[in-house]
């Protein structure tokens, strides 16, 4: 039941270059569940504006609040505008994606509102008093922590891929536009430029499937095969620290505690033995396939499907077999 300390669940729907990120719809799924348990409604907040904000309403947000004139890429301004909106809208819960932007803005919003922040949640629930409890991992994915947020409002950042994306189901929410109030942010950050990644590759953080290569490839040329397999599967390309440190592939592909944590539905590890720091970044993947010559390495032990063999022989056969199965051979 709503109390005078705030009501409703807000989702900060991040957009990049005018397009909502898929995680916005994942947050909606989490928010709808929390709101239903409290008998509250969901508001999606969009900074600046983006194409297709009506989709958020159709996917279950009772209201879409577009804060116009706010540059979401400048953390200061984004946090100030959100804080001003939250002070007047008084939500009980605010969810942000655990993206670079969300991780930058959420702590500022928490300090501005005097709120607690549970970071990097992979699951959200309510306790007996309907307070937010977030599940997250620590110690390179070896420990699961449950964190209670005692304040109102309560804030959490949620890992991309932790929740399924809410589908557009004919929801009848409304879209409301209001001028964003970023006056509290002084002009201390100047956005100079954005260099878009033009490789055309799928970002590993939001990928449903990832094919990764490691030291076991033995050679940078191995990544040509990794890419071929990724292409056949419709997957993003990942890498182990060893492969990145060897200069075989750029850092943005690095999966693991020293790179990025991912949780795809399918993770294919090629020639990756499975050091703790790598496993910590991918072991919550739904299904793991390992291709390795060493049947006893940690990755082969952790895999749902372990294929013992020479990467350079197995992968071309796999690509041919996938193409055959898809009828594209």
């Amino acid at each position, binding site marked *: 039941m709503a109390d005078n300390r705030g009501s409703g669940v807000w989702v900060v729907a991040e957009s990049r270059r005018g397009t909502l990120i898929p995680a916005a719809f994942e947050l909606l799924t989490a928010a709808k569940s929390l709101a239903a348990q409290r008998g509250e409604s969901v508001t999606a907040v969009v900074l600046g504006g983006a194409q297709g904000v009506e989709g958020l309403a159709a996917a279950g947000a009772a209201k879409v609040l577009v804060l116009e004139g706010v540059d979401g890429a400048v953390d200061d301004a984004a946090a100030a505008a959100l804080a001003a909106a939250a002070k007047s809208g008084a939500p009980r819960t605010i969810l942000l994606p655990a993206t670079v932007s969300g991780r930058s803005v959420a702590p500022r919003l928490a300090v501005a509102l005097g709120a607690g922040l549970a970071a990097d949640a992979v699951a959200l629930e309510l306790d007996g008093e309907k307070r937010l409890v977030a599940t997250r991992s620590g110690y390179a994915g070896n420990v699961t922590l449950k964190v209670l947020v005692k304040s109102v409002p309560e804030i959490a950042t949620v890992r991309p891929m932790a929740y399924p994306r809410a589908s557009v189901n004919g929801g009848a929410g409304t879209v409301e536009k209001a001028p964003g109030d970023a006056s509290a942010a002084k002009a201390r950050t100047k956005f100079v430029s*954005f260099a878009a990644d033009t490789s055309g590759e799928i970002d590993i953080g939001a990928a449903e499937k990832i094919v990764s290569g490691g030291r076991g490839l033995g050679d940078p040329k191995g990544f040509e095969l990794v890419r071929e397999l990724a292409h056949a599967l419709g997957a993003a390309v990942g890498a182990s620290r060893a492969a990145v440190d060897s200069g075989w592939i750029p850092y943005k592909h690095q999966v693991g505690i020293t790179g990025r944590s991912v949780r795809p539905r399918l993770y294919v590890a090629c020639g990756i033995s499975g050091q703790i720091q790598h496993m910590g970044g991918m072991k919550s993947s739904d299904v793991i396939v390992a291709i390795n010559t060493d049947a006893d390495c940690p990755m082969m032990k952790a895999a749902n499907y372990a294929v013992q063999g020479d990467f350079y022989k197995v992968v071309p056969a796999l690509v041919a077999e996938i193409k055959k199965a898809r009828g594209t051979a």
Partner: protein
Amino acid sequence: MALKIAVCIKRTPASTSVAIDASGKVQTKGLPHGINPFDEYALEEALRIKEKLDGTVTVVSAGEAEAEEVIRGALALGCDDGILLADPAFAGSDGTVTASILAAALRKAGAQLVLFGKETTDGGSGQMPSFTAAWLDCPSAIGVRKVAAVSDAEITVERGMEDGVDTLTMSLPAVVAVTKEINEPRLPSLKGKMAAKKAPVAKWTAADLGLDAAKLGGAASPTQVLSMEPVPARPAGVSIPGGTPEEKAAALVQKLKEAKFI
């Protein structure tokens, strides 16, 4: 005026394979500890900026008395002085409260540019840099892979985003969290190690920082860790059968089709 740079570092367990005791807490006492590995990149970048701009580097760490050893380690690399923030009143503070302590110390130290590693290997959610900037009421950037330009008035950084690279110019004071892409950290010299033994390390308490003890620690924190549990090992999988690569490929594709990945 020389630029005053500060680097916030943390002493963390050297291994992430930790046990959980009967009270449900991660047991780290007695384990080998060291500097959080990501902080080494922040120290290196600070030293490079110091060398370029004739600045000074102060190392700041909040924690128990043992944190002095990682401060001394940083001093051995060429940092100028250290500050250890230790007070029983700090115990149990969550992210936002810990950041308020760091911010008070950084303000007292007059830091103009504050560097962090991307996250810590223990609790590690990478929120401390933005929290600290919020308390300092100054700009910040996380995920920084390059310092493109820096003066005693502003800093221009490249920040890795999910879909590309942002370039931002921030006025100082500012907080920057760096990734391992940014540099190759140096090793301490023998001379540095000798100097580190004698370098000053200040010890500041809540009272030194003018902080109200009632606003510190676990009870004053807006979040609370309810439980910690070891993550169970993944259940044993299946070994894909087959004598030839082709047979194995066919067997695996069959499994992937059943799971609707193909």
